[in-house]
């Protein structure tokens, strides 16, 4: 019974969230239907948000739910539904060996990491508990304001980029691109031909 006296509530919380996260993660990689994988990932993220709360990082936990689970995963689900993805046939896998290779590599990596982790002691948690919005904001707008601004530029690039990549070309654009390609490829017609053959093959 003494061992159970050591167990605290925080441990239980951790185990609950952790085991659910692991199960959901396996779900992500092993499901055939991508929607199920997406749902698994959402569950993982929510569990992680819970874990962040146990670590007293409330701001990050909130951000995790709002941004990751609420925006990014929604985007994923939209795309899956947009593209109307079917389940993949196992027979058409051209590299079946990877399925069998994954297990030993997985175990090897886990073993290595665990071996290293043994040396990590159990330091006591520090006195100052960062994680409140004030401390995060303090850090962000004084020491790390440059990365913060840089990320805003990054988001801008992402917006513009994804818009450009994903839209359909209009007729004029198609013709323009065709003309440019044929003009550029004039002297290297042989290359042009062979690459076309490969594409059709």
């Amino acid at each position, binding site marked *: 019974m003494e061992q159970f006296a050591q167990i605290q509530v925080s441990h239980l919380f951790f185990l609950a969230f952790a085991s659910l996260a692991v199960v959901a993660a396996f779900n992500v*990689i*092993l499901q055939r239907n991508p929607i199920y994988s997406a749902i698994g990932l959402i569950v993982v993220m929510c569990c992680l948000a819970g874990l962040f709360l146990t670590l007293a990082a409330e701001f990050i936990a909130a951000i995790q739910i709002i941004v990751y689970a609420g925006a990014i995963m929604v985007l994923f689900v939209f795309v899956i539904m947009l593209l109307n*993805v079917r389940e993949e046939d196992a027979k058409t896998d051209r590299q079946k060996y990877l399925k069998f290779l994954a297990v030993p590599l997985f175990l090897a*990596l886990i073993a290595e990491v665990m071996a290293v982790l043994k040396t990590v002691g159990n330091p006591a948690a*520090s006195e100052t508990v*960062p994680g409140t919005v004030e401390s995060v904001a303090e850090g962000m707008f004084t020491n*790390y304001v440059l990365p*913060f601004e840089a990320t805003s530029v990054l*988001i801008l690039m992402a917006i513009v980029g994804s818009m450009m990549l994903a839209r359909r070309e209009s007729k004029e654009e198609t013709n323009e691109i065709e003309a440019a390609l044929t003009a550029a490829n004039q002297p290297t017609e042989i290359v042009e031909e062979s690459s076309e053959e490969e594409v059709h093959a």
Partner: protein
Amino acid sequence: MVPLSWYLALSAVLFTIGVAGVLIQRNAIVLFMCIELMLNSVNLTLVAFSRFLGDVTGQLFVFIVMVVAAAEAAVGLAIIIALFRTRETLNVDEADLLKL
């Protein structure tokens, strides 16, 4: 208090699961989701260390990582959509033009 090593172990397991997923999955979108899983596990590590060392830098890093992950997801999915338009399939094995 939950020992630090437990958090790190969990993070490692989630990361490894993500890596295995990259190897196993053929669907491009699910591949992406496995990459997101890896990023999340790293986030966990960062926050854990931030708590145990008392420094807020770890959480700020997590913030940045999330932003980057979002941007990457957006652009990556746009590319997948564009790819899907030409090939009608999401199988990453079909994209092998770099073969010698």
